[in-house]
């Protein structure tokens, strides 16, 4: 490695062969290769330090287009590695000065890596997010809790008093407000039920902080942002369970993504267990 290059690291695995990744472009468009040590393989690529070095990263991570492209490339490589077998993804921007220092890290952390690889195995991650059910035709309050209008549906039109009278308006308003409170309580109960049932099916589960509404394209608050660890073969069963739960909980809308590499279950910084709750194998 020359002085002006670094080694960007994507993932650690036991199975990799450099040939597996010939067609996958790495971060910065360069080739992806394998660095082996201690019977482990790090999947890595050479990057220029004037773009991916310490000072450059500080600058470039501010550039959202740059960040988006790098994040996608990083993810694509990990995705390709995971396809071949158990894999521990590395966090974005794990850069070494040379293959030697990467190899030394592999040797030093070999036990951790092997434990994690063994624990997660070939399982993948599915993401489930929940939102309040769509409320078409009603203005969403600017301050954001969109649950307001979702319960209750349309109050029977032409109720006693008829539309237009002040008393009827107040009555309607009051029932809307209490419906909002009920809806919010109901949504919370739904979320608990969904998460509990899905956790029971999964080998592991993790609750993540809900993403900001801006990201999800609107002002609908995210109620649940969870990850579940499953064998890929269980994906269809899991999707069916999610669909069934959605059917049983009309107050919420569920969104399913996956299979993902097991990002949420391979960290060492969250208590070793990596969030493997439930412990059912």
């Amino acid at each position, binding site marked *: 490695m020359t002085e002006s290059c670094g080694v960007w690291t994507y993932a650690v695995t036991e199975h990799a062969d450099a040939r597996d990744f010939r067609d996958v472009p790495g971060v910065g468009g360069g080739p992806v290769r394998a660095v082996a040590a201690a019977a482990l393989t790090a999947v890595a690529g050479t990057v220029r330090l004037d773009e991916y070095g310490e000072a450059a990263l500080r600058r470039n991570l501010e550039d959202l287009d740059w960040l988006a492209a790098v994040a996608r490339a990083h993810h694509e490589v*990990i995705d390709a590695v995971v396809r071949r077998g158990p894999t521990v993804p*590395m966090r974005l921007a794990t850069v070494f000065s040379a293959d030697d220092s990467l190899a030394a890290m592999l040797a030093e952390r070999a036990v951790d890596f092997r434990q994690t690889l063994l624990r997660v195995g070939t399982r993948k991650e599915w993401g489930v997010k929940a939102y309040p059910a769509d409320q078409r035709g009603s203005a969403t309050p600017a301050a954001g809790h969109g649950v307001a209008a979702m319960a209750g549906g349309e109050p029977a039109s032409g109720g006693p008093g008829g539309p237009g009278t002040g008393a009827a308006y107040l009555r309607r308003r009051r029932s809307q407000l209490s419906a909002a409170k009920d809806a919010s309580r109901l949504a919370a109960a739904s979320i608990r039920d969904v998460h509990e049932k899905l956790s029971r099916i999964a080998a592991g589960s993790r609750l993540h902080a809900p993403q900001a509404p801006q990201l999800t394209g609107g*002002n609908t608050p995210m109620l649940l942002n969870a990850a579940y660890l499953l064998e890929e073969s269980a994906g269809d069963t899991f*999707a069916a369970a999610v669909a069934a739960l959605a059917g049983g909980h009309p107050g919420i809308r569920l969104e399913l993504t996956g299979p993902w590499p097991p990002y949420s279950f391979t960290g060492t910084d969250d208590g070793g267990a990596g969030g493997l709750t439930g412990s059912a194998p």
Partner: protein
Amino acid sequence: MSVDNVAQPGTAAARGYGVPSREPANLGDILERVLDKGIVIAGDIRVNLLDIELLTIKLRLVIASLDTAREVGINWWETDPWLSSGVPNGSSAPGIVDENHRLRERVRQLESRGSGHD
């Protein structure tokens, strides 16, 4: 009520592993995972990703600001212990608490800004 089967696991599984090619995975989902999850190893090009709480706040900031970053003109990474090699390992680094507070405030501002209009 409904399931938005964004990634259609059945289809994806049939096609081989991966997020389906038809609809590339949501950038926010990817950022959330590649920045906040995965194993944390300090490479020797030092990018300190040590304070998880700080990182999470930062991540929320990234996500919250995706749409609005340019107009807001934020440069929150500029003086950042998270990315600076000068900061010793551990979250007790001087300044990190202040940074944390500053970021929290920033997140709050961005989030309320986003829900107000846009």
